[in-house]
């Protein structure tokens, strides 16, 4: 995106540029530029365009800004927006090693310099550097900082006519102009820096003072080079934490506009500018991280708002639920749906991925499943319909494992279908045994639109318990990085208390002691439904679940 708006990748600070002026996209393997209805138009090779496929070395003009499009051979490669391939033959006059801080060089020199004149010059230079440093070090907004750096350079070097600040982006692959300042509005706002100079500045980390033959529109219009003489330029690297993060550039048409002491001073100022820039970048990252955290909090609130607030109240049955979010918001969810004929739908699922995207996906899913559950009695059909519906959400890398169960408490019948979710575990009371129902599982939702599912039907007798859970339960890690595992879970269920509410509490406690203080990376959800056994109730009413822990229940 090219434009005046701050969030444009190519941000052009020129009031005649529209906020969103033009955009460049990759279409069928070619980069295409489109004008977005800008006020002053977009030009390619001086022709106004609305949409235009770009070719190598095309010149894009947006008001006062000009860019050269360079296509790099790699298909996924980015576009380089600064012309570095100048044709001029620069004569490098002086260089200053910017690897050592200029202040350090000065202090070292102090011990050998005795002439009062030299000392005065040094003192004045240090004063300037100090003044710039204190003026810019408190600016934390990069968009404010960069022009301010150029303002100071113009003040310090009154003979400079143009100043540019470019930042290294894309892991050093790209040098992008970020700020421009000109004394005369007629001066070109585009810049071509000869490769030899950029090499000196970026690789050798030298500040460079050079003279270059004029290479601009006036020159092309046939006037002699001699009329304008040569362009004097100074270019210095911005080095922060040992890395070249950018470049400052000044030029002038004046003969001998810059001197060696100027170059030294520029190197010193550039050092301070780099520090300020580094601080501003850190500040920006911090803000970004805070926004991300706020996003996660919001996602967590969205997610929790979908969890049911109450457990179903069904005579003869006990429901319990437990939801433990991991330190970040995860993708677990569950729901109870009141269906016609007194039947109860139970949903447990896990959305892959975290954050707002997953939470909104979940929002859509909880709504859709209620709709399909009410319309369709067969769980396999409900999942098939749901799977087709989530295909339209358009989040390619999200999928959902989900188990959907319908309990008919009058007939004591269960119908269940599974889309790649952890299997249900059924504890039979008579004879006492465990069943892990994993035969019927199908693909997770959102993988294949035509996936189909099967329904598993079974009946319950008094004392039977059905346990549903998410992978966070079996994958719960101990401090020695050992998973809780399916076998341990089976053992806990087999040997645990017989009433439905207490089973869940027992599982949760056992997993908690397995985990101890180890951090958990996934949500854990456990649901339990039990057909109450009147015999158990008679012998021990204190066995009745007095506690139904559930963070989702309020």
């Amino acid at each position, binding site marked *: 995106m090219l434009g005046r708006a701050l969030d444009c990748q190519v941000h052009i600070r020129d009031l005649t540029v529209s906020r969103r002026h033009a955009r460049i996209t*990759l279409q069928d*393997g070619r980069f295409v530029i489109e004008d977005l209805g800008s006020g002053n138009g977009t030009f390619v090779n001086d022709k106004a365009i609305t949409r235009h496929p770009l070719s190598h070395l095309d010149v894009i003009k947006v008001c006062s800004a000009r860019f050269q499009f360079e296509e790099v051979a790699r*298909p*996924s490669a980015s576009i380089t927006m600064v012309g570095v391939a100048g044709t001029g033959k620069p004569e490098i006059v002086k260089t200053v090693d910017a690897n050592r801080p200029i202040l350090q060089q000065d202090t070292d020199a102090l011990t050998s310099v005795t002439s009062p004149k030299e000392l005065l010059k040094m003192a004045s230079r240090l004063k300037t550097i100090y003044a710039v440093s204190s003026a810019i070090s408190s600016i934390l907004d990069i968009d404010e900082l960069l022009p301010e750096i150029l303002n100071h350079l113009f003040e310090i070097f009154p003979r400079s006519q143009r100043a540019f600040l470019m930042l290294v982006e894309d892991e050093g692959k790209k040098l992008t102009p970020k700020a421009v300042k000109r004394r005369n509005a007629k001066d070109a706002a585009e810049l071509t820096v000869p490769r030899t100079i950029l090499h000196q500045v970026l690789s050798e980390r030298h500040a460079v003072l050079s003279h270059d033959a004029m290479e601009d529109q006036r020159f092309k219009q046939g006037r002699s080079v001699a009329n304008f003489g040569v362009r004097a330029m100074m270019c210095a690297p911005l080095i922060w934490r040992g890395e070249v993060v950018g470049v400052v550039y000044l030029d002038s048409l004046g003969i001998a506009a810059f001197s060696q002491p100027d170059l030294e001073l520029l190197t010193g100022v550039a050092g301070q500018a780099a520090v300020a820039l580094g601080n501003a970048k850190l500040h920006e990252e911090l803000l970004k991280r805070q926004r991300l955290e706020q996003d996660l909090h919001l996602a967590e609130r969205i997610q929790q708002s979908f969890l049911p607030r109450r457990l179903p109240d069904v005579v003869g049955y006990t429901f319990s639920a437990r939801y433990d979010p991991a330190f970040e918001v995860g*993708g677990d969810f569950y729901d109870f749906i009141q269906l016609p004929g007194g039947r109860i739908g139970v949903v447990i699922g*896990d959305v*892959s*991925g*975290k954050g707002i995207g997953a939470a909104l996906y979940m929002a859509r899913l909880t709504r859709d499943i209620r709709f399909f559950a009410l319309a369709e009695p067969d769980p396999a059909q409900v999942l098939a319909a749901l799977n087709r519906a989530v295909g339209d959400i358009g989040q*390619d*890398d*999200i*999928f959902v*494992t989900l188990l959907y169960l319908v309990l008919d408490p009058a007939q004591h019948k269960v119908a269940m279908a599974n889309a*790649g979710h*952890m299997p249900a575990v059924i504890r039979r009371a008579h004879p006492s045994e465990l069943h892990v129902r994993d035969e019927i*599982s*199908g*693909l*997770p939702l*959102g*993988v*294949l639109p035509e*996936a189909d599912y099967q329904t598993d039907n079974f009946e319950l007798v008094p004392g039977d318990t059905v346990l549903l859970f998410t*992978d966070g339960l079996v994958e719960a890690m101990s401090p020695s990085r050992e998973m809780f595992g399916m076998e341990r879970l089976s053992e806990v269920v087999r040997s645990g208390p017989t009433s439905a509410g207490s089973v869940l509490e027992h599982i949760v406690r056992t997993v908690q002691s397995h985990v101890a203080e180890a951090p958990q990376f996934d949500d854990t959800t456990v649901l339990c439904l039990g057909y109450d056994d009147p015999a158990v109730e008679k012998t021990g009413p204190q066995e009745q679940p007095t506690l139904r822990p559930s963070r989702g229940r309020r």
Partner: protein
Amino acid sequence: MLDYEKKERGDVTVFALKGNLDALTAPALKKEIEALLAARRINVVFDLSGLELIDSSGVGAIVSLFKRVRTLQGDVKIARLQGQPAEIFKLLRLDRAFEIFDTQDAAVARFGS
């Protein structure tokens, strides 16, 4: 840590993955996937013989590519599935979506047939 090797075998792009494909490393693979789609390479084999661990974000990256190449009449096939990733594929029933082969050659050859 994830290492991957990308190889072009005729019309088929083979990714040999080594290490962990999880929330931390999946973004790198996603970048490769975008490049692949931009270049219209729609026949892909993942050789998972060196993959030690996959989590839901990792599966998500592969599923995402699978969904997108399918709309372009391409396909994703899996070769040399083993260890924890094999367990996850089994648990998620992904063998119903992906064809899985014992050798890389067999997976690549399947595109020709």
